[in-house]
């Protein structure tokens, strides 16, 4: 059952991605990228990651789409047509083949006895509730065991906010000053 859902979601994701490559109207492309994030969030639910799905739905579908729509409204709504050049396609295909070759040494999808599950995560699952009192282990790790990581994340957000303000609030100069 999970396999079928997984296939269907990945197929929809691929269809959306191809739509994003082919369309030139930027508003439609932004909408499709929101749909892509929503499909990714659904896939996270299927893959037993509800916390990640909620964050992706809020951030990827909500915040990112709003920011991109704002940028499109401030700049231009249509991508100019480009001549097809073969080099990027070749680079992408070669990179993809190399990556797929690399996955051959990975453990099978859904296996339980993989190296990544043998070190700290069983410890979190076994002792997380006693040590933190939070039954949701993702929250326990995020807020308690790795609280400093989350603090660093907040610092990154603040730095990005300061950067955006510094970029956009400066005195306007130069040509091409159109709209707000």
């Amino acid at each position, binding site marked *: 059952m*999970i396999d079928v859902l*997984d296939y269907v979601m*990945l197929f929809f994701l*691929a269809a959306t*991605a191809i739509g*994003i*490559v082919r369309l030139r109207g*930027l508003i439609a492309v932004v909408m499709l990228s929101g749909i*892509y994030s929503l499909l*990714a969030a659904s896939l*996270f639910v299927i*893959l*037993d*990651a*509800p*916390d990640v799905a909620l*964050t992706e739905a809020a951030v*990827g579908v909500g915040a*990112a789409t709003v*920011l*991109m729509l704002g*940028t*499109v409204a401030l*700049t*231009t709504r249509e*991508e*100019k047509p*480009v001549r097809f050049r073969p080099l990027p*396609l070749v680079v*992408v295909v070669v990179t*993809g083949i190399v*990556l*797929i070759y690399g*996955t*051959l040494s990975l453990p*099978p999808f*859904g*296996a*339980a006895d993989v190296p*990544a599950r043998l070190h700290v*995560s069983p410890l*979190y*699952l076994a002792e997380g*509730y006693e040590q933190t009192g939070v039954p*949701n*282990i*993702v929250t326990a*790790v*995020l807020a308690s065991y790795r609280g400093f990581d989350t603090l660093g*994340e907040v610092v*990154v*957000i603040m730095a*990005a906010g300061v*950067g*955006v303000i510094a*970029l956009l609030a400066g005195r306007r100069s*130069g*040509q*091409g000053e*159109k709209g707000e």
Partner: protein
Amino acid sequence: MDFVSNFATHYNYWLVIVLMMTGFYLVISRPNMVKQLIGLSLFQASVFILYISFAYVADGTAPILAEGQEIYANPLPHVLILTAIVVGIATTAVGLALVVRIHRAFGTIEENEIQDMGRHS
């Protein structure tokens, strides 16, 4: 090659790599900067899916402790990706602000047109 025999166990990774490469193609083939940033976020979302695929365990459930449940998905990649999603939107926001600024300065967001300006003046 043993690609065919590996498909049943690795198809998830391979399809995610296809998605990743679609984003990569947008980044390197399009001169439009909004499209490049959208390609970057496609790539990013695909990397997230790859990580969550690593965490998935067949017959397991979400890592929220419950009575009578023995197998849970690996919580560590979930935590890493939660952080990565938030950091990703922060970098995207800075990139989009740069695009708006470039549009103010040059009147275009097509990379090749900006390069041509430098060449002709």
